[in-house]
């Protein structure tokens, strides 16, 4: 790990995508209980984010936050090596010196353990080694020599590396000679950081007592126990030691279990804790075992050469002990047999009091931010508007026994989809960020019993309503290596209801304004506003879209019209009707103020209204009467809607026409038929009546009769019935019927006389009239034009010629052959007769058959072009006819 990190700076730049993962890995790996870490852990990402609150120009309080800047804490190397040792030893005997290496840097490091190549003093220890002593009992765990090797040690006393160095006093060494023997540890990360200890061995011919200390477990909770402490003494010297005093002062937090003392000599016999009584009471060896305060003392009267023994006792870890390392070293003094008192110490034994993580998270019970007003594990907010942001106030308390940071998460919630949860610090402004390197925002370090208030903000989606909604908020311990690592607690953040947005669509004025109509939810049963208008015109409704949601709740609304209370996304109106919504450039809906055509109001702030002009176009054919128009304003986001029932009354229009006026020529005693259409151009059904005189002629002796085209064939024939004063029928709007006026001139009519015939049809207390003007002539030329289809343009009519409309086959590419018969129906010659016709629109002259006339000569346009066909017939005698034939091709 160290190697990766030390070279990481260069690698990071070359492998940006891996960077964050890499850092997280380091942080997770290196994070240790903070109380045990000397310095801010290497790899810690210290993030910072500035913020501001301010009031904008609209007097709205706002918040701004900056980018996050991050500083990665770099590794520094540091170490501590303890302790210098001093012992006496017999010639030829081995010596063991326990040492403890603590990484006091801020990241995991490796250390090279070396023994000084040169020893100083009167003799040199032989067979020197460094051995692991993981359990710290002062005795090698195995005999793998660590000299010159690198050992990896995590930072902190908890991770202390314990080892023993050993060597053998040469047999030739003599009493009083000394030896200095050094061990050193050098940081691999920074080889300028090194530490060493020196152990001094003094040769003696007398007793040599070594004491080693061990404990049955090296770690445990607070409180816990009992643990057995074993103090082993050995006389490796050559004389009998007396008054061997082994004393163990328990560190704070470790308590003695009364009556737990045992001695290997007396076996299961309980040693009394009192001072001054020896056990066994008679004989030797015996022990004076006593406990004074937290110090346990055992005094063995004598220990012969080669003799060893053990004193055991039990301890408990008290409650309330902060996590950390309890270090304990026994002390020793004895008379080495020569009358000299020798002092010494045992190895030091570490006991790690493990952190116990515990946390609570709760509501405040303060009604202002916890509407239920009680501390019940539920932070209750009674209501919020759609799209609003709700703030919950959650208090996290460290109920563990050590400093801890707590991750804040929202593992589950029943809020509407689209709700965004954000965590803030206690000020509600600064975002809560991660301080532990695990990517999850946390409270930051909380000391024992400390509380921190986390603000949870839920930004609600615009369209949701209802409730209640619950979010589970969880605080989770992040301390590594805790007895109950990952301890967590949860509470509920509850929003009882989201108040739906509302809108009120009114006529003529905004809510509260003068003349406002249609207040309240629609659609109304009766039209609120009715506008009368003629067909073919427009009617403009003045609408106000009032946002009646809370003052801080803006919304926007789609506008749509319908002829019923059923709405779709587009206008639903009768054929020919249309509605456009227009913004107003002013304060009214005059045409001059018409703004853009809109289908949505745009943002309407809560408590305000938007003026919209609804322009209804009425088709020219609109029937008279009421046409309901429903308007709807509906928010596409919140769904808030209101509808309005208005109405257009289409004015009644009476208009019947009798067209066209006609003119023709007849000879005296002859008759002529005029064809007229009686058409209802109004918007109501018109009963048609006839009153005398149905027709009238302004010339004496003339007669005229009005006929209905009873069989609707466009020709006056025997089946058609004359109109009488009893004739009535109804024309619906747009309906048309054909009426014929047959005019007969008296036989004595003077040539040149002109008769005007007035025909009339009554409706709506008035008349529609048609005027036909008939002139008497001497030579009366009658023209009859007939037609026949020639579908293949082979020059031969496919049917007989007739006056009837061609109802089939007159398609582009087909031909029509016309036959015009000019007959002199008079009594004298008609001279200078010219029969002219033209190719109808969308046709061209077709020269098969070529244009012809039975009398005179004919000219025609070039084949395939439009133009006039003109037959110069000349004179027709009474009764003589000229027949002109030409063909056209339909394009």
């Amino acid at each position, binding site marked *: 790990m160290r190697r990766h990190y030390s070279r990481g700076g260069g690698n990071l730049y070359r492998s940006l995508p891996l960077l964050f993962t890499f850092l997280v890995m380091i942080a997770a790996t290196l994070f240790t209980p903070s109380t045990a870490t000397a310095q801010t852990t290497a790899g810690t990402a210290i993030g910072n984010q500035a913020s501001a609150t301010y009031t904008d120009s609209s007097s709205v309080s706002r*918040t701004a936050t900056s980018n*996050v800047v991050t500083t990665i804490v770099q590794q520094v190397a540091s170490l501590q090596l303890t302790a210098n040792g001093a012992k006496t030893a017999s010639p030829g005997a081995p010596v063991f010196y326990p040492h403890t290496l603590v990484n006091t840097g801020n990241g995991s490091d490796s250390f090279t353990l070396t023994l000084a190549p040169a020893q100083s003093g009167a003799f040199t220890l032989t067979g020197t080694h460094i051995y692991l002593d993981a359990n710290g009992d002062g005795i090698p765990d195995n005999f793998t020599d660590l000299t010159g090797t690198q050992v990896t040690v995590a930072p902190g006393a908890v991770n202390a590396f314990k080892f023993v160095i050993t060597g053998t006093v040469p047999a030739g060494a003599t009493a009083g000679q000394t030896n200095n023997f050094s061990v050193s540890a050098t940081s691999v990360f920074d080889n300028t950081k090194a530490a060493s200890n020196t152990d001094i061995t003094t040769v003696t011919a007398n007793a040599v007592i070594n004491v080693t200390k061990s404990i049955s477990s090296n770690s445990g909770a607070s409180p816990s126990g009992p643990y057995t402490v074993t103090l082993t003494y050995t006389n490796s010297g050559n004389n009998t030691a007396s008054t061997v005093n082994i004393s163990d002062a328990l560190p704070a937090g470790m308590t003695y279990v009364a009556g737990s003392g045992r001695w290997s000599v007396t076996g299961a016999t309980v040693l009394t804790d009192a001072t001054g009584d020896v056990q066994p009471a008679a004989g030797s060896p015996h022990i004076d075992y006593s406990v004074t305060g937290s110090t346990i003392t055992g005094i063995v009267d004598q220990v012969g050469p080669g003799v060893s023994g053990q004193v055991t006792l039990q301890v408990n870890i008290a409650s309330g002990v902060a996590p950390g390392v309890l270090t304990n070293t026994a002390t020793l003094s004895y008379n080495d047999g020569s009358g000299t008192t020798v002092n010494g110490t045992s190895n030091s034994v570490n006991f790690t009091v493990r952190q116990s993580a515990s946390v609570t998270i709760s509501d405040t019970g303060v009604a202002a931010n916890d509407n239920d007003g009680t501390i019940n594990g539920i932070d209750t907010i009674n209501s919020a508007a759609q799209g609003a942001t709700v703030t919950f106030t959650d208090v996290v308390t460290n109920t563990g026994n050590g400093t801890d940071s707590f991750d804040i998460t929202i593992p589950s919630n029943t809020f509407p989809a689209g709700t965004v949860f954000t965590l803030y610090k206690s000020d509600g402004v*600064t975002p809560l960020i991660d301080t532990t390197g695990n990517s999850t925002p946390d409270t930051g370090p909380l000391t024992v019993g400390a509380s921190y208030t986390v603000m949870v903000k839920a930004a609600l989606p615009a369209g949701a309503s209802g409730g209640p909604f619950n979010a589970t908020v969880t605080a989770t311990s992040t301390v590594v290596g805790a007895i109950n690592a990952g301890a967590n607690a949860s509470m509920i953040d509850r929003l009882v209801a989201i108040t739906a947005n509302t809108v009120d669509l009114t006529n003529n004025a905004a809510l509260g304004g003068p003349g406002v109509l249609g207040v309240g939810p629609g659609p109304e049963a009766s039209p609120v506003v009715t506008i009368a208008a003629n067909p073919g015109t427009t009617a403009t409704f003045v609408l106000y879209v009032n946002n009646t949601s809370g003052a801080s709740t803006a919304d926007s609304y789609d506008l749509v019209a319908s002829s019923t209370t059923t709405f779709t996304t587009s206008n639903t109106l009768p054929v020919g009707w249309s509605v456009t919504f227009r913004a107003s450039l002013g304060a009214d809906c005059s045409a001059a103020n018409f703004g853009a055509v809109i289908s949505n109001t745009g943002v309407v702030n809560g408590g305000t209204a938007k003026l919209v002009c609804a322009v209804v176009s009425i088709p020219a054919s609109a029937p008279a009467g009421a046409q309901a128009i429903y308007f709807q304003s509906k928010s596409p986001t919140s769904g808030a809607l209101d509808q309005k029932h208005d109405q257009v009354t289409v004015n009644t229009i009476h208009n019947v026409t009798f067209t066209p006026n006609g003119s023709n020529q007849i000879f005296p005693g002859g008759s002529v038929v005029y064809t007229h259409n009686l058409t209802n151009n109004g918007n109501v059904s018109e009963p048609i009546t006839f009153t005398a005189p149905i027709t009238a002629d302004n010339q004496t002796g003339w007669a005229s009769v009005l006929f209905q085209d009873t069989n609707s064939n466009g020709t006056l024939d025997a089946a058609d019935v004359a109109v009488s004063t009893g004739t009535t029928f109804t024309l619906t709007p747009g309906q048309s019927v054909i009426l014929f006026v047959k005019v007969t001139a008296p036989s004595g009519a003077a040539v040149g006389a002109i008769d005007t015939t007035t025909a009339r049809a009554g409706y709506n207390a008035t008349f529609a009239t048609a005027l036909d003007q008939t002139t008497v002539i001497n030579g009366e030329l009658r023209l009859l034009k007939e037609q026949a289809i020639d579908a293949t343009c082979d020059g031969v009519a496919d049917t007989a010629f007739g006056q009837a409309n061609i109802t089939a086959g007159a398609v582009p590419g087909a031909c029509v052959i016309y036959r015009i018969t000019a007959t002199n129906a008079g009594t004298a010659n008609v001279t200078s007769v010219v029969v002219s016709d033209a190719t109808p629109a969308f046709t061209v002259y077709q020269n098969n058959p070529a244009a012809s006339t039975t009398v005179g000569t004919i000219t025609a346009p070039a084949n395939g072009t439009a133009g006039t066909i003109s037959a110069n017939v000349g004179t027709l005698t009474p009764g003589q006819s000229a027949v002109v034939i030409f063909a056209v091709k339909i394009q």
Partner: protein
Amino acid sequence: MRNLGYKSALVFALAMISAVSLWSDVKVVLTASKIVQVNGNEQKQPGDKAKPGEVIEYVADYKNTDKRPVKDVQAKLPVPNGMEYLPDTANPVPVMASTDDVHYAPVPLKRKVKGTDGQMKEELVPYSEYKSLRWDLGVIGPEEMKQVKARMKVRTQSK
């Protein structure tokens, strides 16, 4: 340039876990520089890496991007975990500080404690307990900017 890329990548990763950005007229840009002494002269270096005991200077620029002034501007700069505020480095002055991110008072913070004689007495709150700084900047005019800064030390003793 390489430093920038490195920082950007990290900022992005951290930004994802922090708040959604809120719309605002005031844009806040925070930078961090390491302050080092080179031959007796102060020098600024990129603040993306620092060892325990080294000093980081945070500079926050508050720019009003609107055409209208904003008022009652309160700038907040947290003292992040792992950092410790260095006294008399906040600029401008006066500055306020908080030990709980909620209650602010003028720097230096003081508190009442019960002395060994049982009497209440006032003492200075250790700077190491400061959790955030606050400046009351008042009005920022249209398209104007105000700046706050403060120095902090990477903790040599973990809190």
